[in-house]
């Protein structure tokens, strides 16, 4: 009915319903508060309007009344806070087995690379019903990955990863907006999220790929000679990276950190920042020598080493499907 004039956004993720429910609750609560205050104001303003010969009656405040309208709103506010916190907390805790997509934002485009190796620009294909985790960074200024139909956004920062995850629920094409002002073409930094039925998605995924991202990372790892120090037999000048990902790491200065994506990334670009206990800060920085995409590939490779299958590299179960299947969009080779 309101094709050209929607009043409610499309709903296409597992989070969207939770956000909408809270939003509707807030509309009801604030509607009631507005009704209460406005009807009191209008009633008093009409009932006690100035009449000749009638003077105002002085009424002093009272502490019980003041406490009432301090404590009741505070209680209501805390309910809103708790509800909002639950919705947020859920949407900020990515499930462990989510499919991973690496996102690099730059003025003014979105570059996306599936862990399976598919690359896209300004478009992201995802299947219905599967958890998808975006590992995002920016090449220049701050951007923000915003999908209104999913009711979520996350700023994308230069120099680190931020993460967003979702589970799409309805097939369709949805807006992707950059929500953080990023310069001239900020409003042109938009794209589409294409949510597909699983079968269609499998077909799309089988379209040309250079192999999984981690395989690309393995190649870079070899080309840059990382393996000379990071030896698999733990005899190198750098720590053995096998099984490191996701584990706690004891640092030279006594701190403990978790070897997550941001830690691996930092160790490539600023190796002196957090040196592993028992090692010397001898690793040179790769800042400026590797692109954001190459860092992503390296991170994906190190992650794949974390899987306790000997020499195992995480691949998609959907990989060996026929070429040239329908579905599609702009895949970049």
């Amino acid at each position, binding site marked *: 009915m309101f094709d050209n004039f929607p*009043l409610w956004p499309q709903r296409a993720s597992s989070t969207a319903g939770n956000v909408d429910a809270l939003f509707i609750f807030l509309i009801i609560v604030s509607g009631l508060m507005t009704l209460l205050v406005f009807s009191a104001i209008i009633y008093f303003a009409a009932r006690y309007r100035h009449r000749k010969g009638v003077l105002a009656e002085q009424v002093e405040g009272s502490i019980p009344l003041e406490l009432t309208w301090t404590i009741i709103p505070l209680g209501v506010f805390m309910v809103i806070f708790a509800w909002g916190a639950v919705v947020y907390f859920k949407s900020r805790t990515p499930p462990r087995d989510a499919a991973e997509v690496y996102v690099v934002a730059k003025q003014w485009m979105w570059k996306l690379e599936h862990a399976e190796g598919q690359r896209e620009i300004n478009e992201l294909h995802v299947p219905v019903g599967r958890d998808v985790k975006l590992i995002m960074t920016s090449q220049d200024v701050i951007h923000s990955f915003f999908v209104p139909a999913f009711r979520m956004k*996350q700023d994308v920062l230069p120099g680190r990863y931020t993460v967003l995850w979702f589970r799409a629920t309805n097939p369709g094409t949805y807006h992707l907006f950059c929500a953080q002002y990023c310069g001239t073409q900020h*409003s042109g930094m938009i794209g589409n999220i294409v949510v597909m039925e699983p079968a269609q998605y499998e077909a799309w995924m089988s379209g040309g790929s250079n192999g999984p991202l981690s395989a690309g990372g393995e190649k870079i790892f070899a080309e840059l000679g990382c393996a000379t120090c990071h030896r698999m037999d733990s005899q190198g000048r750098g720590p053995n990276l096998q099984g490191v990902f996701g584990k706690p790491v004891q640092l030279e200065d006594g701190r403990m950190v978790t070897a997550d994506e941001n830690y691996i990334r930092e160790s490539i670009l600023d190796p002196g920042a957090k040196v592993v206990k028992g090692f010397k800060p001898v690793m040179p920085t790769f800042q400026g020598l590797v692109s954001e995409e190459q860092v992503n590939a390296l991170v994906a490779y190190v992650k794949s080493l974390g899987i306790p299958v000997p020499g195992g590299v995480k691949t998609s179960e959907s990989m060996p499907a026929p070429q040239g299947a329908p579905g599609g969009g702009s895949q970049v080779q």
Partner: protein
Amino acid sequence: MATATVPAVERENYLNKEYGVGSWLLTTDHKRIALLYLISITFFFFIGGFFALLIRLELLTPAGDLVQADTYNKLFTMHGQVMVFFFLIPSIPAVLGNFLVPMMVGAKDLAFPRINLLSWYLYIIAGIMMLHCMLTGGVDTGWTFYTPFSTAFSNTKVIEAGLAIFVAGFSSILTGLNFVVTIHRMRAPGMTWSRLPLFIWAHYATSIIQILGTPVIAITLVLVVAERALHLGIFDPKLGGDPLLFQHLFWFYSHPAVYIMILPSMGVVTEIIACFSRKRIFGYTFVALSSIAIAVFGFLVWAHHMFVAGISVYAALIFSMLSYSVAVPSAVKVFNWTATLYKGSIHYDAPMLYAFGFLGLFTMGGLTGLFLSALGIDMHVHDTYFVIAHFHYIMVGGALMGYLGGLHFWWPKISGKLYPEGWARLSALIVFLGFNLTFFPQFILGYLGMPRRYYQYPPEFQVLNVLSTAGATVLGIGYLLPMIYFLWSMRYGKPAPDNPWKAAGLEWQTQSPPTTFNFPEEPVVTWEAYNYDEIDRGHKEEVNVVG
């Protein structure tokens, strides 16, 4: 409601005591400085308003067609910078506060009259720097100066704009300093803290924020300039800096700055509601302390601007919870104002209409703040038009309605003339309707997902944008009208009696316009604030206690 007789011969007052440009530019009279501020901020208001008009015209159609993308980005940046730093922050404190704080406490002037003049000169220097920045190309970072865009990527006049705001900050600090000292040290005999008008309490709270918060934005802008000009790595990750550090520092000031804009407006509205319902303010102590609570809690909520910026989930939880703590004192004020109307004798003069408008718009602005503080909602509506609508309801609906209401209320005292009541009521109505038409559709736009600072947008957002632009036109008329009839009244308006509203407060007990030193002799205060019972009945009334 205006009554009482007016003396036939014009008496000596602060306006006619001396003439000539020098007598104005070298004045140390707080009332003349208030007028200097009034003229200067009105000038910047219309510049900022002109930018807003161009923004709204560009958004009339989904495609970018009226101006270039870069021009559009400069327009919203400079609209924000001018309106925030050169209009809203100085508006009520530097004009009405400057004029009224000394009179309300029964003093001859502010504690440091020359520093007061200095603050105006700093404002003017900052204003000239800002104008120079605009005329030589402008700036496109958004008023928020987010790094590393502002320090490494924008090729516009970031340094010039930053330094202009840096200087304007000192003007604001000096005003705050002057108020705090005046309120502490210069109260007339008998003017105890509990007898102070709530306007003074509101300005006291505002001054605390100005003194404690403004230096932080000054430092932050210096750091931006240092990184941009000297490549010191502070915020840019490429130089080893942290872009989130900038946001923390920026919002540490810029969130409390919202209360610099809204608290004085709350003070104005309190005075107006008491006068036009002929009542003591319900719960004086709670209204007074809620101003202080807002100033204190206001410093603890800044990271609610950063829920999706990449801060930790736990930090977000804490800041979300604290954000609700600042909503409570605001709600307490609204309830007390409403209760003040109870059993009053309510007059519908223009200042009261503005105060009603304030109540309506501020309530809606405040309630939508509850939406934004809820983490689960913010991750959807952050950086969308929902935010734009929310803060305009507070800063324009709230702060500007209060400012206009206050200008009408004290205009007879300031100018010695009465404004035309019919026109004033009409303009209050136009502003209220125009405002809602402009900004209400933006709440819907925001929930639909239209991001802010978009030069072009998908076509399904057009209908709501057209409504908003139409509203802005109405609103523009509503703002032009008062300027026209205030100017008109200075020449043609009826002379104002000393106390046309039969209002309480020391400022009404001296002549209109007042003499240079405000009072013929130092007043001695023997009554409580808002003694409307004594004014209307000629004696003190038994006060009923409810609850």
